[in-house]
């Protein structure tokens, strides 16, 4: 088991390195732009670019970049980003990380219990009207795009009823009550999709377990329905949930770009969008590295957790 983990981690690093190098080269191969406006000196812009070393051959830039990261942990400085010119990339990134992470954590905390409970409920009342109602709701939430639900939440809860603020509050104290309240609309919007996903997943797993043989045996032995469900069925049905929670968490992290834009959350998603459109090399590389990293991390964690949780799928055995 241990050897397997080490192998997986080594492989992940290799993938990471290959992907980052490819990204770097692909991005640097795009033409660099110098746009002059009336009265401004194109020469100065050009001089700045040369001084930063952007006209050197790509390999030279690459070596300098790697050295900078490994020895100085300096991910560069914003050049084209409209809001972060001259600021260190790593510093800005660390500053923007908490809101995104918090919103995702809150939304997971909110969605998991509700989703699972809904799934259990509908599995127990299978084929009854409750089951159909929940299934339809789940389908609807999965089908409606997130920006539509986000806008409805914003319009109804924040604008018409005024229960929650329209945008996320300012401040770096993320654990105060006011900031939490201002994060709630974003959390709700994010969680709708997750709730639907968890409910559907739980229902499917639980129904599969409920029809298996050992449950029939338990019933035959004389256990009541709730005892059956709680002591046997749930435990087995829950095992695949945890990996899916982790996978869902990662998916939501990269998917919250829209929500962050709508609710003015000062998080990583907006940073990424701006980096792409303004073609700021350092920010783009840093953020791509980040998303790749968490993707790989998720993969490893899910694999390992499968191995721990479900003895039937001990990895290494084929």
């Amino acid at each position, binding site marked *: 088991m241990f050897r397997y983990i080490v192998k997986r981690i080594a*492989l992940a690093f290799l993938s990471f390195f290959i*992907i980052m190098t490819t990204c770097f080269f692909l991005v640097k191969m795009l033409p660099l732009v110098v746009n002059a406006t009336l009265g401004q000196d194109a020469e100065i812009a050009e001089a700045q670019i040369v001084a930063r070393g952007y006209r050197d051959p790509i390999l030279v830039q690459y070596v300098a970049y790697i050295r900078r990261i490994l020895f100085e942990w300096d991910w560069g400085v914003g050049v084209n980003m409209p809001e972060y010119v001259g600021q260190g990339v790593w510093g800005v990134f660390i500053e923007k990380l908490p809101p995104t992470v918090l919103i995702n954590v809150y939304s997971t905390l909110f969605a998991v219990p509700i989703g699972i409970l809904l799934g259990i409920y509908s599995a127990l009342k299978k084929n009854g009207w409750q089951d159909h109602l929940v299934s339809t709701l789940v389908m609807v939430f999965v*089908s*409606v*795009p997130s*920006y*539509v639900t986000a*806008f409805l939440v914003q319009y109804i809860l924040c604008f018409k009823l005024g229960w929650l603020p329209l945008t996320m509050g300012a401040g770096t104290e993320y654990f105060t009550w006011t900031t939490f309240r201002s994060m709630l609309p974003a959390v709700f919007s994010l969680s709708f999709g997750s709730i639907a996903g968890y409910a559907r997943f739980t229902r499917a797993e639980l129904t599969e377990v409920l029809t298996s043989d050992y449950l029939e045996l338990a019933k035959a032995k004389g256990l009541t329905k709730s005892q059956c469900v709680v002591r046997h069925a749930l435990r087995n049905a829950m095992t695949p949930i945890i990996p899916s929670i982790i996978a869902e968490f990662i998916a939501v992290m990269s998917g919250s770009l829209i929500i962050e834009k709508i609710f003015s959350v000062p998080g990583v998603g907006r940073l990424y969008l701006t980096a792409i459109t303004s073609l700021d090399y350092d920010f783009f590389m840093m953020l791509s590295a980040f*998303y790749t990293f968490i993707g790989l991390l998720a993969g490893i964690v899910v694999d390992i957790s499968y191995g721990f949780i479900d003895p039937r799928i001990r990895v290494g055995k084929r």
Partner: protein
Amino acid sequence: MQEIPVFTARPIGYFKDAWRRFKRNKASVVASLIIGFLIAFSLFAPMFSPYTVSYQDDYYKFRYPRNKLFLSLGLDFWDGCAEKTLPEHTFYYYLSMGKETGRYAIKGEKYEKFDKEKGSYYQFRLDSYEEIGCVFLSLTNGEYERIQRYQDETGRQVLYPTTSPNLRPTIDGNPKLTLDANYWYQYKVVSGRDENGLPLKQKVLIPVFDDDGNFQNIYASYSGGDGYFSRMRVEGETPLYDYSIPNQTGVEVRVNYHEYYRFYHSYVLKDGIDEPNFLFGTTQAGKDVFTCLGSGARLSFFLAFTVSFVNLLVGGIYGAIEGYYGGNADLIMERVSDILSAVPFMIVITLLKMHMGDGSQLLALFIAFFLTGWISMAKRVRMQFYRFKNREYVLASRTLGAKDGRIMLKHVFPNAIGTIITGSVLSIPATIFSESSLSYLGIVNLNTGSVTSIGTLLANAQPYLTTYPYMILFPALFICLLMLSFNLFGNGLRDAFNPSLKGIE
């Protein structure tokens, strides 16, 4: 003696069996019908609409949906109107349109008056197809004569008397007012300070009525040189009025836009459009939502089906080879697909778009979906192959000398088909969803004038969610139905192909 069992039921194939099970699942059948309907909609809807995707009109933007059936029933729903509560001067502005041309912007001429501290407010249903009223147009002399001939032939009045240039509102602070042809009545300008002593930001035009409470016109008096020979004139025309003012292009005239639209499409372009009537309303560029939705659905379907199919093919072959041969080949191929699968989708689409330029976005999107999509298919096929490749019948077949390809195709593959098809089908709505999210974020733009996609419709409608909700209603409904039915359909397929899920139908 032994009894030889006689089989009374005929043996049926795997697919027939699955089909039977599928039919029994009512939800799946309904879902597949809905999918069929949506596909039919996307194929045939553009054919039944007189508009094309490239059609657009500069004035008929943001028009409400209008259904002729509902209109004839007299319902206040789907009638192209919107409920408005507006201050007095705006109310008179719209009322005057009907008084002049008989085409009422206020539906049914019904309104209610409220008094608030700021002044009187009126509530009425504003017909979005009539609210444009009259506009100024510059025409050549030839076109001018053509309209007049049209008027005389059909008896429909398009041209209305023009207003004296020095009586028109010329408020420099408001550029739209000087071009507004709807001020055909006498007005007084209210400015300075309002009742609270605060400076008025905009000068407001209040109509000046005559003793009977009617509007008084400010038409240009007859000068003898307006070249108007048509017999259609406004009522009570003594003295006569001028209908045009000469300018560089030819003449400047004042037309009722609704009538001009009819004239232009039925007489000049002859493109089959008669009256403006948009079943699902128009977009912010003046395009017809109904047609765009059909055409966009076509593109989205096309993209999703192609992506699915290609992923199936490539992923299937890749996974088959991996799973069947195992060993070193499997190891290497797994590593490669591991690395590829770790690349975030955003990076792929961004880099592709930047390198391929804005000209071939559809191709870039297709490649991006393909690059990130075939891996999951390959994994699934590989898993299936691992499960079935060591069965006895496979060994038997190999002993009998069958080649690898034949074994893969004829023996192992059919077992996997169920999962493969289900996975394939379920990836279609995911592709459409991703495409719509990317369009929304502005990362791709598939709207090229004669082609559009559902994602762009949603993205373009999103800023107007609170002001013109109908624009997002129809595409959102479409995509919801699509997802819902595809999910149910996929579920049904999975249940049908997998008989071991007994009791769960």
